[in-house]
């Protein structure tokens, strides 16, 4: 981009959800270990409930009793 300054890394926030950061990313954890991902973007867990911390695994979602007639089922993962 000849007329633009060097691109900034974009970070997107969402209330109650992860922080999405453009990858690749290194996350330095409290104990000094480094988690690394080379995905084009990563979702960093902010709720601390993720079982794959520091990466979001959607555990931030509110748990809710579904209407009796409907249990959303996973739809096959693209």
């Amino acid at each position, binding site marked *: 981009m000849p007329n633009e300054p060097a691109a900034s890394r974009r970070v*997107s926030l*969402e209330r109650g*959800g*992860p922080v*999405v950061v453009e990858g690749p990313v290194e996350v330095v954890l409290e104990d000094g270990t480094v988690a690394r*991902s*080379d*995905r*084009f*973007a*990563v*979702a960093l867990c902010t709720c601390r409930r993720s*079982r*794959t911390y520091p*990466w*979001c*695994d*959607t*555990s931030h*979602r*509110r*748990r*809710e*009793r*579904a*209407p009796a007639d*409907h*249990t*959303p*089922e*996973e*739809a*096959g*993962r*693209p």
Partner: protein
Amino acid sequence: MNAPAPATTAPAPALVEGRGDVSAAVVDALRTGRPPVHDPAALLRADPWGEDLQLALHLLYELHYRGFAGVDDDREWDPDLLRLRRALETRFLHALRVDLRHAPRSVEEAFAPLLVEPVDLSGSVSRHLETDGELWQLREYAALRSLYHLKEADPHLWVVPRLTGRAKAGMVAVEYDEFGAGRAERIHARLFAGLMADLDLDTSYGAHLDRAPAVLLATVNLMSLFGLHRALRGALVGHFACVEITSSPGSRRLAAAMRRCGAGPAAEHFYAEHVEADAVHEQVVRREVVGGLLADEPELEPDVAFGCAATVLLEDRLGAHLLTAWREGRSALRATDGVTPAGS
């Protein structure tokens, strides 16, 4: 984790037998190179959710992906086959619209139930497999899902030329990840072939078509229908968002199921990868792809909601079919002559 990845680019798959008048006419047309010959009344009689119509549609759609051994690649654009496909699609789409006449028409309402984690998972296939699944059920699940996963993310790529701006950039970013981010060994379809090899299943494309019942074929036909029609680009985006949003929690349970049953490292890795990847894909698809599309073409909102609702409907039906069969100790695969179900 890095078992030698089986090739997924084997020769074109073999044709299967028809399951009724219409699908038999399609098989015959493909075998002989002649136009399909069928009683027009058979088309009107065929149940839109039945084996005959769903298989006929699936065979016609496959001409756009890998085709079939012994069938000229040019048949993809054979006007007689396309005319028949159009007639079948009309019946399929109409049946969907009838069954979804009370479904939400706003994106907010369509997605809201997917963005909470249900407390009651009694109807969830992944929960069943996680807690009570047996190896033969995992094998059946993988054999059936292979009809999509061996071409994972392919149907969705057709939407790209129909998008612009944020929606296009977001869609391509996610698809790039699905296709291994430049590394062939990381293509998700390839990872799925690794899962199948761990489960000792035939990994070749189309190998399990004959055993897949209509309730499974409908979930795959839905993607091809939405992907191939520019007029349905909103529905394709709604479908894709629905899959990405619902994938992570289900993938976590399926990874646990693979681990508990000792399926093997590649089998576990396929789902573990999707826990993390789809948590990201969800964010990008909701914000950029759905958000970008609706900023460009707000009139497509009911279509996006329709694509999401259609996906939930067909996945729920598939889930009910699988759980009913398995809870009765039966195979969920279609019985074919002289073949023992993977489960027995």
